[in-house]
C-alpha cells in the first residue's frame, strides 16, 4: 500500500503535462493581442479616416496616402494640440470641445487647419469673421465661382449642408453668391479652411463630381495630416473644470467595487469547492404495482364508462354472494336471486334489477348502485 491509491495527477506531473499546452496558449494569445493592437482602428464613427461605412472617410484617407500624405487618425485632443508647423490639422465635426480646447488648438501653431462643419465656438477662435448663417444649402452640383486655386482646379463639386458668410478678406467658394460652403482665410500666419459640406468627402459621395479632387487639393497642402475626430468626453478627460459638474458616482466607489468583487470571488471559491465529487449511481425504476389498475380507473372516469364500471361492481358483488351463500359457481341468475332474496328478505324483482339490471344512466345512479351493492354484500357478511 503506497501512494498509488491517489487519484489524479500530482503537481509535478500536472506541470509536466500542462506546460507545453500552456506555452502554446500563451504564445497564441500574445500573438493575437499584438496583431489586434497593431491593426486596431484608432478612430471610428462618421468622418473617421478608418471607417469604411458610407459616412466614414477611409476612401479619402487612402487617396491621400496614395498621394504621399501621411494621414494620422486620432481621437485624442493631445495629438491635436501638438507642434503644428508644416502640418495640416483636420477637425471632424461632432464632439464637445470647449472654448479653451479650441484655444489650445489655435495656440499649437498649425500651418493649415481644416474645420469640417465647425461650431460657432470654433469659428470664433480660429476663423474670426466667418458666420454660420444657419441656412441649409440644398444638395446640388455647383461651380467653384471664386479664385481659390484648389477649387478652380477641381471644377464642379456636389455640395450640401451648412453655409457661411465670409469676410471680404476670405476666399469663398461653392455657394449661392451670398453664402458659401468652402471658405479659406489666412490669419495669424496660418491657413484656415472652413468646410460646411463634410458629406461631400465621405465614402458615399467622394466619387461624385469633382469632390475627390477638391478634397485632395484642400488637404494635400502638407505631407503630414493629423485627422482629429473629437469625442464627446474629451473635454472632461482634459481636466476642464468649466463645463461638466461633479460626477454622480464618486470615483472611489469603483475601487471598492473591485475589492468587493474579489472578496465575492474568494468567498465563492470557499463555498463552492466540494469535498470530492458527487457520487452517481444507477437507480432501479420504481413503479407502483397498482399503477395499471389506477390508470384503468382514470380511463373509466374520463370516458364515463358507467356500463363497464357497473358490470365490474356487479360481477364482484355476485362473486361475494356466491361465496357467502354457497351458490354453485355456474348458477343461473334466477337461482342466485331466489337464494339471496330468501336469505335477506329482499324483493326478488328489485334484487334482479340490482344484480343483473341495465347499466346506470348517470353518475348518481352509479353511486347509488355501488352503495346498494355494498349494503347487500355487507348484510351477507353479517347475517
Amino acid at each position, binding site marked *: *500500500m*503506497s*501512494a498509488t*491509491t*491517489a*487519484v*489524479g495527477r*500530482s503537481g509535478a506531473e500536472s506541470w509536466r503535462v500542462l506546460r507545453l499546452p500552456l506555452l502554446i496558449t500563451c504564445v497564441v494569445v500574445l500573438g493575437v493581442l499584438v496583431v489586434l493592437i497593431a491593426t486596431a482602428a484608432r478612430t471610428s464613427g462618421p468622418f473617421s479616416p478608418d471607417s469604411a461605412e458610407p459616412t466614414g472617410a477611409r476612401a479619402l484617407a487612402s487617396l491621400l496616402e496614395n498621394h504621399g500624405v501621411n494621414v494620422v487618425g486620432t481621437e485624442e485632443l493631445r495629438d491635436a494640440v501638438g507642434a503644428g508647423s508644416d502640418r495640416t490639422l483636420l477637425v471632424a465635426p461632432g464632439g464637445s470641445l470647449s472654448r479653451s480646447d479650441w484655444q489650445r488648438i489655435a495656440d499649437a501653431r498649425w500651418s493649415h487647419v481644416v474645420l469640417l462643419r465647425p461650431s460657432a465656438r470654433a469659428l470664433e477662435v480660429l476663423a474670426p469673421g466667418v458666420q454660420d448663417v444657419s441656412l441649409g444649402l440644398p444638395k446640388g452640383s455647383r461651380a467653384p465661382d471664386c479664385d481659390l486655386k484648389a477649387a478652380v482646379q477641381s471644377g464642379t463639386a456636389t455640395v450640401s449642408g451648412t453655409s457661411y458668410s465670409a469676410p471680404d478678406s476670405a476666399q469663398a467658394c461653392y455657394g449661392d453668391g451670398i453664402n458659401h460652403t468652402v471658405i479659406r482665410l489666412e490669419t495669424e500666419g496660418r491657413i484656415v479652411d472652413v468646410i460646411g459640406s463634410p458629406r461631400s468627402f465621405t465614402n458615399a459621395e467622394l466619387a461624385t463630381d469633382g469632390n475627390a479632387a477638391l478634397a485632395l487639393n484642400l488637404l494635400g497642402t502638407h505631407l503630414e495630416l493629423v485627422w482629429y475626430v473629437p469625442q464627446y468626453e474629451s473635454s472632461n478627460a482634459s481636466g476642464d473644470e468649466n463645463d461638466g459638474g461633479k460626477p454622480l458616482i464618486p*470615483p*472611489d466607489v469603483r*475601487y*471598492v467595487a*473591485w*475589492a*468587493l468583487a*474579489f*472578496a465575492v*470571488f*474568494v*468567498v465563492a*471559491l*470557499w463555498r463552492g*469547492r466540494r*469535498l*470530492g*465529487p458527487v*457520487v*452517481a*449511481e444507477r*437507480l*432501479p*425504476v*420504481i*413503479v*407502483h*404495482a*397498482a*399503477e*395499471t*389498475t*389506477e390508470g*384503468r*380507473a*382514470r380511463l*373509466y*372516469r374520463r370516458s364515463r364508462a358507467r356500463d*363497464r*364500471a*357497473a358490470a*365490474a*361492481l356487479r*360481477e*364482484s358483488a355476485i*362473486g361475494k354472494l356466491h361465496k357467502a351463500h354457497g351458490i354453485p359457481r355456474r348458477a343461473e341468475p334466477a337461482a342466485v336471486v331466489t337464494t339471496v332474496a330468501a336469505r335477506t328478505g329482499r324483493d326478488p324483482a328489485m334484487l334482479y334489477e340490482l344484480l343483473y339490471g341495465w347499466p346506470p344512466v348517470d*353518475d348518481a345512479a*352509479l*353511486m347509488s348502485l*355501488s*352503495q346498494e351493492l*355494498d349494503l347487500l354484500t355487507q348484510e351477507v357478511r353479517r347475517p
Partner: protein
Amino acid sequence: MVVTGRAGALAAAGVVFVALLMPRWAGVGVVVAVVVLVCLVDILLAGSPRRLQLSREGDTAVRLGEQAVVTLLVANPRRRVKGLLRDAWPPSAGVQDAPHQLDLPTGERRRLTTHLVPTRRGDRQAYRVTVRSIGPLGFAGRQGSHNVPWTVRALPPFKSRKHLPSRLARLRELDGRTALLVRGQGTEFDSLRDYVPGDDVRSIDWRATARRGNVVLRTWRPERDRQVAIVIDSGRMSAGRVGDAPRLDHAMDAALLLAALATRAGDRVSLLACDSEVRADVRRPAPEDVLPSFVNALANVDAELVQTDFRVVVSQVLERLGQRSLVVLLTGLDPAVIEESLLPVIGPLLRRHVVVLASVADPRLTEMEESHADLIEIYGAASAARTRLDRERVTAVLTRAGVTVVDENPDHIAPALADTYLALKKAGRL
C-alpha cells in the same frame, strides 16, 4: 487547492481597507496580493493529501436494514495533515457519518470508521476517499482523492425468518419425530424398532417379528431428498412496488423461507432467477450452504424491465431437474402475461413436476375496492374489482391446468408458500 472562510474574511477586510484607507488601484492590488500570497504560503505549508497511505478493513456483507462498519486506516509518512476526510459511497450505501476531522502528525496512523446502513439490495462500492489538508495558517490548503476500493454487499433481509420456528414445528409433526407412524402416501420406510404398548398394531412387521422373536414395528417417515426448484421471475412483473419494496424483494423473502424449511425437511433446494436470461443460478448446494449461497446469489438481482421469457424458464428448469420435483415459480399474476406466455409453454413442466405459482398480491387493490366515498373512488373500486376478477379467472385456469396458485399479500406470501409446501409434503405429492 481550497480556500477557507478565513481567506474570504481576509478579502472582505480588504474591501474595508480599500474603502477607508486606499481608494486607488494600488489598494485593490495590495488586497489581492496579500490574499493570494497568504493562500499560496498556506498551500505550500499544508501536508500533502496525496502522500497519505490508505487501506481498508471491515464488513463485506450486511443484511439490508442492518449496519455495516468499514474501517479506513490512514497513515501519514510525511508532514502533518490537518483537515477533513470524506469517505464517499453511493447514496444508497447509506453513509451515517459526517466527514471525519483529521489531524495526523508525521509518522502516525489513524483508524476512521464509516458506518453504512444500505437502503437497497446489492453491491455497494466505495467511491473515493477525499482528503482536504488545510495549511497551518488556516487560510487555504490542498485537496486530493484516493481510490481505496471496498465492496459491501447488502443481502436480502430475510424478514420472514420469524415464521421459520412455527413451520419447523409443523414439519417435525410431519416428520415422525412426533408419533406419526402411519404408513401412507408421501412416506417412506425409515427403520424397525421394538413394539411399545400403545403403538398402532397395523405397523407391526410380522416377518421381522418372526425372525427376531420379539414384536417389531416398522416406522415411516415423510419422503426425503426430494428436489425443490425455486424460480424467481426477475422480469418486469417483479418490478412493481408493493408496499415499500418491489415484488421481487417479497418474492426473495418467500423463497428464502421456503429454502430454509425445505432444507430442514431434508430436500435439495436449487434456485433460479430468470427473465429473458438467467440472473442467478444456485444448483443444489450442500444443506448448510443453502441460505448463504441463496442470499449471495440474490443480492445483486434487480428487476429488469423486460418481459420474462417463460420458454427460457421452462427449458432451464427442465434441464436442471431429473426426478419428479417441486417447482415453485414466483411471479406476478398478470392475466395477459400468464395466458399468452406462460400457459402455452408450461405443459412439459406440468407433466413431469409439481408446479406451484406464488404471486404477491397488492393490498392497495383491496383498499381501492373497498372505498366508495365519491365517484372517483367508485371508478377506482370498479377497476380494482375488474383486476381481482381477472386474477381469479386466471387462477382458476391455472388450477384447472394443475398448478397450485398462492396469491397473498406481501406480509403473508412467505408463510403461505411455506404452508403450501408443508401441505404438499403431507399429501405426498412431492
